[in-house]
C-alpha cells in the first residue's frame, strides 16, 4: 500500500523558464470563422498567461460546447472540451481534488446561462477558485444562429422569425446575485482592457467571472457596434476603475451621479463633486447592481471590474477539513473495518 500520490504538488519554483505567448499556442489549426471575436480573446489569453508565472502543466482549460468552447484545443496547456453546459462541474471537481492547479472555464451565453445556468449559480455561491470567461455574443453560434438567453427582446433570428418574445438576462447581474467574488466585463475589440481583465481575474482567489462582449460576425454581426466602434467607444462606454469617479467621453468630460437610487448623466461635469465614485470592494452589491443597469443608449455601457472582494474559498475549505482530519491520525483501513460492535468466532 502506498501513500496517495498525485503528481506535482503545485509548488512553483523560482527558477521557472520564462514563458512567452508562443509557448501557449497549440499545434491545432484554429477553426473559428475569419473575423470572429473569439480570436481576440484567444490572443489576449495567450499574451496574458506568461505573466501569471504558473508552469503550463499546472494550467487547465475546461469548456462546454459552442464555438467559444473550442478554445482549449488552441491552448498548449491541459485542456478538456466537455459537454454542453457542464464545464463548471468538471472544473469544480478538478479544482476540489487538486487545489494546486490553476483552472479556467470557457463558456458561452448559451452554454453558461441556458443549459448550464444552474451550475454557474452554484460555482459562484461556493466561491470555487476558478476563472470563468463567458463569451457573450448574444446568439447561439455553433448551432447556426438561434437566439440565446442574452439576445435582446424582439430579436429576429433563425428560431424567432417574428422576433423573440423573451426578455434577456444580464450575466453580470446574475453573477452579483449569486455571490461571485470577482465580476468584470470586457469586450473583444479593446484588447488592452481585455488582457488586463483576464489578468486581474486570474489573480483573484475565489471565483472570478469575466463577461466578454464578443462579436459573432456570421450570425449576430455588430451586436455591440453601436457603442464599441473605435470612433464612438469613449462616448458610449464608461470604464469602471476602483476609487475613481465615473467619467467618460473623449476628454472624460461627462460623469454619472446618483439621485437617490437613480443614476443620472452629468454632461460636461466640471468638478468630480457629486459624481458616483466606484467601489469594487463593497461587500454590499447595491451599487454594483445600479451600475449593471446602465445601458446604451440612455447611458454609457460600463466595462471593467464591478466587484472584487475576498471570501473563504470552497476548495481551500474542503482541503483544510481533510488535512485537519488527517492531522488527528490518518485513517486506518483495518481499524475502520473493525469499527462498531465485533465478535470473534473461534
Amino acid at each position, binding site marked *: 500500500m502506498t501513500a496517495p500520490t498525485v503528481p506535482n504538488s503545485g509548488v512553483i519554483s523560482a527558477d521557472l523558464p520564462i514563458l512567452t505567448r508562443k509557448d501557449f499556442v497549440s499545434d*491545432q489549426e484554429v477553426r473559428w470563422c475569419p473575423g470572429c471575436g473569439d480570436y481576440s480573446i484567444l490572443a489576449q489569453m495567450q499574451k496574458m498567461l506568461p505573466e501569471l508565472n504558473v508552469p503550463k*502543466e499546472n494550467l487547465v482549460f*475546461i469548456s462546454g460546447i459552442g464555438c467559444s468552447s473550442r478554445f482549449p484545443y488552441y491552448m498548449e496547456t491541459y485542456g478538456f472540451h466537455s*459537454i454542453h453546459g457542464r464545464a463548471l462541474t468538471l472544473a469544480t*471537481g478538478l479544482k476540489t481534488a*487538486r487545489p494546486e492547479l490553476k483552472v479556467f472555464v470557457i463558456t458561452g451565453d448559451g452554454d453558461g446561462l441556458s443549459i448550464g445556468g444552474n451550475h454557474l449559480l452554484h460555482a459562484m455561491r461556493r466561491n470555487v477558485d476558478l476563472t470563468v470567461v463567458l463569451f457573450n455574443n448574444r446568439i447561439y453560434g455553433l448551432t447556426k444562429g438561434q437566439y440565446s438567453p442574452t439576445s435582446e427582446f424582439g430579436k429576429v433570428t433563425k428560431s424567432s422569425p417574428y422576433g423573440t418574445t423573451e426578455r434577456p438576462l444580464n450575466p453580470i447581474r446574475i453573477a452579483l446575485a449569486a455571490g461571485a467574488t470577482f465580476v468584470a466585463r470586457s469586450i473583444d475589440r479593446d484588447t488592452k482592457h481585455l488582457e488586463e481583465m483576464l489578468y486581474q481575474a486570474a489573480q483573484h482567489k475565489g471565483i472570478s467571472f469575466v463577461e466578454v462582449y464578443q462579436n459573432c460576425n456570421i450570425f449576430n454581426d455588430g451586436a455591440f457596434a453601436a457603442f464599441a466602434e473605435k470612433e464612438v467607444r469613449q462616448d458610449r462606454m464608461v470604464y469602471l476603475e476602483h476609487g475613481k469617479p465615473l467619467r467618460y467621453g473623449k476628454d472624460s468630460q461627462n460623469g454619472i451621479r446618483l439621485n437617490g437610487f437613480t443614476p443620472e448623466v452629468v454632461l460636461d461635469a466640471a468638478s468630480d463633486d457629486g459624481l458616483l465614485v466606484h467601489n469594487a470592494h463593497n461587500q454590499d452589491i447595491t451599487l454594483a447592481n445600479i451600475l449593471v443597469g446602465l445601458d446604451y443608449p440612455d447611458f454609457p455601457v460600463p466595462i471593467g471590474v464591478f466587484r472584487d472582494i475576498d471570501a473563504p474559498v470552497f476548495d481551500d475549505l474542503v482541503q483544510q477539513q481533510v488535512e*485537519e482530519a488527517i492531522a488527528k491520525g490518518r485513517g486506518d483501513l483495518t481499524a475502520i473495518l473493525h469499527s462498531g460492535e465485533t*465478535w470473534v468466532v473461534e
Partner: protein
Amino acid sequence: MTTESQTKPEHTVEDLERVTIRFAGDSGDGMQLTGTQFTKTAAVFGNDLATLPDFPAEIRAPTGSLPGVSGFQLSFSSSDIHTPGDHPDVLVAMNPAALKTNVADLRPGGLLIVDEDEFNVTNLKKAAYPVNPLEDGSLSKYQLVPIAITRFNELALEGLPLNAKDKFRSRNFYALGLILWLYGRSMDTTIKWASEQFKRRPDILDANLRALRAGYNFGETTELFRVQYHVAPATVAPGTYRHISGNEATALGFVAASVLSGLPLFYGSYPITPASDVLHELSKLKSFGIKTFQAEDEIAAIGATIGAAYGGHLGLTGTSGPGLALKSEALNLAVMTELPLVVIDVQRAGPSTGMPTKTEQSDLLQAMFGRNGDSFVGIVAPCTPSDCFTMAIEAARLALKYMVPVIFLSDGYLGNGSEPWRIPDVASLPKIEWNYATEQDGEFNPYERDPKTLARPWAVPGQKGLTHRIGGLEKSGQTGDISYDPRNHHEMTLARQGRVDRMVQDIPDLEVTGPETGDLLVLGWGGTYGAITSAVEGARKRGLSVAAAHLRYLNPFPGNLEAVMKRYKRVLIPELNTGQLSLLVRGKFMVDAIPFNKISGQPFKISEIEGKIDEVLGLRGPYTIEFGQSSVLSGG
C-alpha cells in the same frame, strides 16, 4: 398487572433452528431501532441472520395511518441462511395500521403480539377497520397475544420527569425487552448501545432502560407465554465478525479501493433514496483523504467526479435510477475520454420517481444501453449486503486498470439489508493497478493504447510534458486530435467495446452450486441471491437436479457463462424486473432462458422461486405469484 412479589411461572424452553420476526408500527414508533437492536444481539450471540427493513414512503405520514407503517424483519438461525425469511413466525404490531398491513404475511399459527391499548376507535378508523380485529375472531389462525404495552410501559415509567409523549416513545424498548426474553437473549448489547446513544439525555436513557427491563420482566412473570425459545449459534467460519448493511459495505469497499490503489477518493453525489447513506458514510471519513461533494444535481455530481478522475483521483459518483438517467450524457463523456470512474446505482422501483423506498432490479438495461451512440461500460453487481464490499473493490479495480467507467448496480434490498460479515484481512484484498503516463519531452499520444488492456495512458494535469486536449468529440486513435475520419470512428468504437470485452481476462469464472450438469440451472444476478440459493438448496434436498449460478459481473459476462448454461436442459432466470437479464442472455447466446419476473417492490420469497422451479420441472401446473396485502396500496 404483574409485580416482583408474584411467583415466577415455569417456562419450558424449546429449540428452534430458525426464527423470523417482524416488528411493525407507526414510523414514529422506533421499529427500525427495535429491529436493529435485536439483530445486533442475535449477531453477537453467533446466529446467522439476514434483515429486511421496510420504510414507509413518507417521512412523516399521519400518525396511525396505513402509509405511515414502518417495518423491520429479521431472520436468525443456527444454520446458514440467505434471506430474511418469507413468512414471519412472529409479528409485533404496535397499532391497527401495522397489523392490517403486515398480518397477511404472518405464517398461520404464528405468534401475533399487539399493543391492545392502541386499538381504540380513532386508530381503528385510521386503519379502516370497521370492527376491532382483536375481538371479531378474524385473527383466529394466529396465536394472538394482546398486551397492554402502552399502559404497562407508562406504569414502569411512573414518576419519571418526562412528559406523556416522551414516555409513550419508550414503548419500543418495552417490546424489545419482551422479545429478548422470549428468545432467551441478554439485554447487554442494547444497554451498552443505549448508554452511548443517549449519553447526553440521561432522562431518556433512564426511561428507555426501565422500559426495556419492564418488558423483559413482563415476559418472565406473565403466564401468557409458556414457552421460551432457543436458537443455537450457527457454525460459521472462524474469524472476527461485525454486522454490516449493503450501503455501509459499499462505502467501506471504496475506502478500501482508495487505500489499495493509493489514490485519493473523490465522491460526488446528490441525495437520493436509497443511495444517500453512501454519501453520509463517506463524508465522515476525511481522515482517509476522501473528499465528498454534495453537488447541485446528479449531472454536477458526475461532472465533478469526471473532473476529479481527470485530475488523477479515484472518481466515484453515486445515485439511484432517476439520477443515473440524469448522468447518462456525462457518463458518455467519460466513455469517450476514457477516464476511470465508478458509478453506484442503488436501484429502486421505477420508472420515474416510482417507489423510492422499494427495491427493484430494473436498471440493468439502463446501465447497459441507456446512453446515446454505441457506448460500452463495465457493470458489476453485488449479491449480498456484505458482497457490496468485495464488488466495490472490483468495480474500482476494473475501472482503473482498463480506464473505463464501471457501473456498480446495488439495490434498495441490498443497500438497506444487513448481515453478519467476517471482516477480511486487509492483506488478502486484491491488488489495484493503474498507470499514470510517464512524463516525457517528445510528442505525447494520449490515445496510444496498452496492447493487452486497450487502456490509454492516464495523463494527469501537473505532469510535465504531457499537456494535451481531450473531449467528447471523436478522437483520432493515437494523437487524440479531433477526427471525423470514417474508418477512425469505426475503429475507435470497436476499441471502446474491446476495452470492456477484454475485462473478461480479469474477472473470475461463473461458479455453479449443485450438479455440474442437470435438468435446470437457475441463473440470477444482484440481490436475488439469497432467495435463489435457498430455493435451489431446497429443491436439491427434495432430490431435484437443479443448480444455481449467480452473476456478479454483467458486462462483460464471465467467460464461461455460455458453456455453463449449455450444460443444463433448461435455464430459469428470476429477476425483479420484466426480464432484463433474460433479454441480454437470449440476445447474446441464443439460449432459450425462461424469465421469471416480479415487479412489486418486494424481494422474491423462497417459496415463489420454488414454485417456479417445480413448474419448469413439470412437477406442478403453471405457477403465479400471489401478492399479499401491500403496505401502501391497500386500505388507504
